[in-house]
């Protein structure tokens, strides 16, 4: 099956949203992870944290309503919801490393079957830096990786990451447009697949060894 990138992102964002529970403190990475907040289940309200120093972050500011003092961690002007708070970067990372953040959702370059993740550098090519990602990976109670299953046809879900790691054995769940996979003591367990694909097709696009444990459910779209 063939899914274009935009459709893939929507599928991933919708599925990530189902992992978020009412009242949780959540940090969503810039880009695809942030889209998940558009698809929360009815009745589910999460508290969004942005590591530059805000909780109860609201949607992006409307044109003409931007406040130069209020942005998200990507520098985009945003809003704050009633009940929100601002703080400095030390407190922000105390929330992150201190286990106060329930879930973080991050994109990645590579992720592997042991829960290792590489998302901050391609030596010699791309050196953006880790920003707050390493702290989020170490500190958040649950780490969800939201990524397209492959990049230019090459698997992103590997037996072993080849790029320099961002964190060791910190990933809990991997959500792609084709599958949902959980990192467990028994290996990378295939939990769900897209209704229009097969286990064989997913396996052929995955370098990691997938563990099949009972029934593999169809991803809710």
């Amino acid at each position, binding site marked *: 099956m063939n899914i274009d990138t935009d459709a893939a992102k929507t599928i991933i964002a919708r599925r990530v949203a189902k992992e978020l529970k009412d009242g949780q403190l959540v940090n969503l990475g810039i880009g695809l992870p942030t889209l998940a907040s558009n698809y929360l289940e009815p009745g589910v309200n999460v508290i969004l944290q942005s590591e*530059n*120093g805000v909780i109860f972050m609201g949607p992006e500011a409307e044109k003409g309503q931007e406040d130069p003092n209020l*942005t998200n961690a990507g520098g985009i002007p945003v809003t704050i919801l009633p009940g929100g708070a601002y703080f*400095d970067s*030390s407190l922000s990372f105390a929330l992150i490393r201190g286990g106060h953040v329930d879930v973080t959702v991050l994109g990645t370059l590579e992720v592997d079957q042991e829960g290792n993740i590489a998302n901050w550098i391609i030596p010699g090519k*791309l050196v953006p830096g*880790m920003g*707050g990602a*390493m702290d989020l990976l170490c*500190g958040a109670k649950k780490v969800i990786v939201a990524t397209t299953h492959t990049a230019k046809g090459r698997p992103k879900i590997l037996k072993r990451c080849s790029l320099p790691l961002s964190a060791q054995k910190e990933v809990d769940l991997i959500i792609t447009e084709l599958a949902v996979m959980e990192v467990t003591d028994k290996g990378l367990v295939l939990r769900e697949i897209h209704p229009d694909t097969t286990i064989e097709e997913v396996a052929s696009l995955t370098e990691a060894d997938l563990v099949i444990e009972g029934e593999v459910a169809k991803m809710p779209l």
Partner: protein
Amino acid sequence: MKLTPQTELLSLLRDGMSIMAGGFLGCGGPERLIDLVIESGTQHHTIICNDTAFVDKSVGRLIVSGCAEKVITSHIGTNPETGRLLHDGKLTVELVPQGTLIERIRAGGSGLGGVLTPTGIGTVVEEGKQKVTIEGKEYLLELPLRADLALIKGAICDTLGNVYYKATARNFNPIMALAADVVIVEADEIVAQGAIQPELVMTPCVLVDYILKEEAA
């Protein structure tokens, strides 16, 4: 009197300083103090900042001006000039996880010998660092960071140097104000001593050495 015109602040600058600058992708960045550093023509600085922002904004402009020899930061991806200078061997970049960077600065300003953090274990960040095991869990010993100069941006500052920040413009500013030998504040608004309610003071005036005085246009 801490209120000082820009022309007099120039004398605080010399070549080869370590300079902290607040701001997060330019939000809460000390733009006029950055102008000051650039206008001074001083060179070979080590810049300590959360990120190198954008080519036309905040600390990003310092990078573009070529006055930095080294930058200690968590992210350079939004400023292509940082990457280019790094690639050309004209700039040394020390990348530090954001939460580690802020705690190293806090330690430097708080009389602590360092901090123990799990961030970076199992990655290149741990290279050359001491590991300490506490109750069965491994941590990296990260050392304190201080600077000769901190450039701080506030929303409101009173004439004594008490500072109030707005929204997410606070970020690294109040922590950096702890960790430099000389601390200069610029603010959107300067008010009389005592005009900021004490509970709302986020950087107490005892940390501030100079306040940038607006010069008549």
